[in-house]
């Protein structure tokens, strides 16, 4: 993991002092609400339905056991004992007190964490694939690049008052678990024919009210030019992005209005001024950052373990867990383990302080003290020995963290929704729970197979509903909560936006609707097609016919 040096530490201390003073002035009435608003937002602080909400960055999803224990401490000491992992590799505290926020930031700084730019109209926390560095299918480890982007974007003076928020994702794996194509900038790490590393650059992707898949503006940007090129994109956006209408202010609207070719030409012209200048990345800086993400000292092991095989044969639940939550690792004898935070009845992505400490202990014991946070709101232990899996499983089982649903229906993405969020039109968590209860049967979910179901409580789309195979959006109809369903969305390399199936549904209808959609899929699928494959083959009509069919 990246470790701070004196410069990083000093900046964080300066920031805390600055925010402490801003908070003091606000509470003393010296700073108007409208002036304090963007300042607190750029420190991750929202004012929510019931209390402020503090969003803490987990840069590109990398988290140490020490940091997780600190988050547990904050949850217990400053909050109500739990916190929520969001879809952007952040963690949210729902009940902090404003006067205590500077103290929370000081506590976070002790473990090299912060809430900088986790909200507001600025460059947000850069996200990446949770399997970076350990996936057997990797082009290049994205983490050093994410750290380089983190530093470039942190307190960037020119881009602190953009037309709207700005999100960057980096992906170095073949599968793309980072939803790269629905970010303001998506960066795929690629190699050219001579083996040099560079980036395929996409712009203008995003969800929200106007969902768009990003478009390529550069097929191969040599890595040395990454920051000057990002500067050029942002400079065009900062000057030309719309500021007259909040809903048209994202870069996707600018790219759409100009056309991608015109936008690309503007960026190229802007870039000529800084290309090859002092912002050109150096081999030294890349090596410095790369050195923080070297492999741990792996033992020499084999991909076979008698005790594991025996348990697989005797313990069906362990078998299920292995099948769903355990993935291949690039190192022989090691595995990647996902902790699915989607136990039925628990709010997706929520973890209480005791569970956090428990997971931190497991990370120390089994995974070199490191974890990852995923955009699907799960946790990952990246480096677990195959032979440790039975013991790890037993431990997780005791804390109800061995839910074997990774990648299945229960593994839903859900925003906090109307129970917490003041923007929401409708509740999300009770919908997730009702669907989980209806399908709370591993064999059934296994039979359905890989599927994503994403729920957002409003069209800001924090729950990524447009890119769920099944998407659910909370809408307000004359003061009542209704749910619109989309089908066919996907956030992987074949990214697609879902299509609306038809008129929206009442809350209590939702489990039946999902059931009917799945009935069509199960009846029509060929061979081992996933839901999305069947959908792409047969289209939306068969689903519409069945879901809206009148009862005889």
């Amino acid at each position: 993991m990246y470790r701070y040096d004196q410069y990083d530490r000093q900046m964080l201390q300066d920031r805390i002092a600055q925010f402490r003073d801003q908070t003091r002035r606000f509470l003393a009435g010296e700073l108007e609400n409208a002036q304090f608003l963007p300042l607190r937002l750029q420190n991750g602080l929202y004012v929510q339905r019931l209390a402020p909400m503090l969003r803490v960055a987990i840069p590109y999803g990398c988290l140490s056991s020490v940091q997780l224990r600190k988050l547990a401490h904050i949850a217990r000491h400053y909050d109500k004992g739990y916190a929520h992992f969001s879809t952007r590799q952040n963690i949210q505290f729902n009940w902090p007190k404003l006067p205590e926020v500077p103290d929370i930031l000081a506590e976070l700084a002790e473990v090299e964490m912060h809430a900088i730019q986790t909200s507001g109209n600025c460059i947000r926390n850069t996200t990446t694939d949770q399997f970076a560095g350990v996936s057997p299918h990797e082009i290049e480890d994205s983490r050093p690049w994410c750290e380089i982007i983190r530093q470039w974007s942190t307190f960037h003076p020119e881009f602190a008052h953009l037309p709207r928020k700005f999100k960057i994702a980096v992906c170095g794996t073949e599968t793309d678990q980072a939803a790269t194509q629905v970010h303001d900038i998506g960066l795929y790490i690629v190699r050219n024919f001579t083996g040099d590393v560079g980036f395929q650059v996409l712009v203008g992707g995003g969800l929200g009210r106007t969902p768009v898949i990003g478009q390529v503006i550069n097929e191969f940007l040599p890595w040395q030019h990454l920051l000057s090129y990002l500067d050029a994109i942002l400079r065009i956006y900062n000057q030309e992005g719309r500021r007259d209408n909040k809903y048209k202010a994202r870069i996707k609207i600018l790219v759409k209005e100009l056309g991608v070719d015109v936008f690309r030409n503007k960026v190229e012209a802007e870039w000529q001024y800084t290309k090859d200048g002092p912002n050109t990345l150096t081999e030294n800086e890349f090596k410095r950052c790369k050195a923080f993400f070297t492999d741990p000292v792996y033992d020499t092991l084999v991909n076979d373990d008698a005790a594991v095989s025996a348990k697989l044969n005797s313990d069906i639940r362990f078998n299920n867990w292995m099948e769903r939550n355990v993935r291949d690792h690039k190192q022989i004898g090691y595995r990647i383990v996902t902790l699915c935070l989607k136990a039925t009845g628990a709010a997706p992505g929520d973890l209480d302080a005791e569970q956090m400490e428990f997971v931190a202990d497991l990370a120390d014991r089994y995974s070199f003290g490191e974890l990852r946070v995923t955009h699907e709101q799960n946790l990952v232990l990246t480096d677990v020995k195959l032979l440790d899996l039975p013991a790890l499983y037993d431990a997780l089982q005791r804390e109800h963290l061995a839910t074997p649903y990774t990648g299945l229906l229960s593994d839903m993405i859900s925003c906090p929704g109307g129970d917490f969020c003041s923007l929401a039109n409708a509740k999300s968590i009770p919908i997730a729970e009702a669907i989980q209860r209806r399908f709370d049967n591993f064999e059934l979910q296994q039979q359905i197979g890989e599927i994503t179901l994403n729920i957002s409580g409003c069209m800001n789309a924090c729950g990524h509903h447009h890119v769920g195979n099944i998407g659910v959006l909370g809408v307000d109809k004359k003061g009542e909560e209704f749910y619109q369903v989309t089908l066919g969305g996907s956030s992987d390399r074949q990214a697609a936006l879902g299509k609306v199936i038809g008129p929206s549904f009442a809350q209590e209808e939702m489990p039946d609707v999902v059931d009917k959609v799945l009935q069509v899929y199960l009846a029509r699928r060929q061979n081992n097609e996933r839901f999305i494959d069947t959908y792409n083959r047969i289209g939306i009509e068969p689903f519409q016919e069945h879901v809206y069919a009148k009862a005889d």
Partner: protein
Amino acid sequence: MPKLIDTLGNLVDNAWLQLPKDATLDHVVQSSSKLVLVPCKLWLAEKASLLATGKTFGVWFDSDEPVGPINADLALLPLLALNFPTFMDGRSYSKACVLRQQMKYEGEIRAIGDVLRDQLFYLKRCGFSSFDLKDSVKLEDAQKALKDFTTNYQATVEEPVPLYRRRA
């Protein structure tokens, strides 16, 4: 009391008369001030007549007005001012960078309009050299704000070499 400060936080005497956005040539001729800050539209429309008055000019830009059209005039203009209709309109940060980095302007760039304490540090880093503070901003607060951070990551106008080329 309007307060104009430089990047060190020192109070500076403001000898310039700033004319409003709809000002005409007559306003300039009728004013007794020798130093006149005119809106960019007036400058572009009446450059020759303005220069014929023998006065010294600065030009101010609203946040939606590009700085490119005065590229050829930079040597004539000791002062350029960039307006913030609201502090949340960040376009002028990029414009200051463009003036310094691309157009190589070396005169004074002044922040005018909704210029508040908490934006001063970033403004300074983008190449602004003076700040026409809003009435509500206390001088000593502004002076403190100019020192909010001791070190920064990025290559900027103020420090053209990024931290990664300076790291010990």
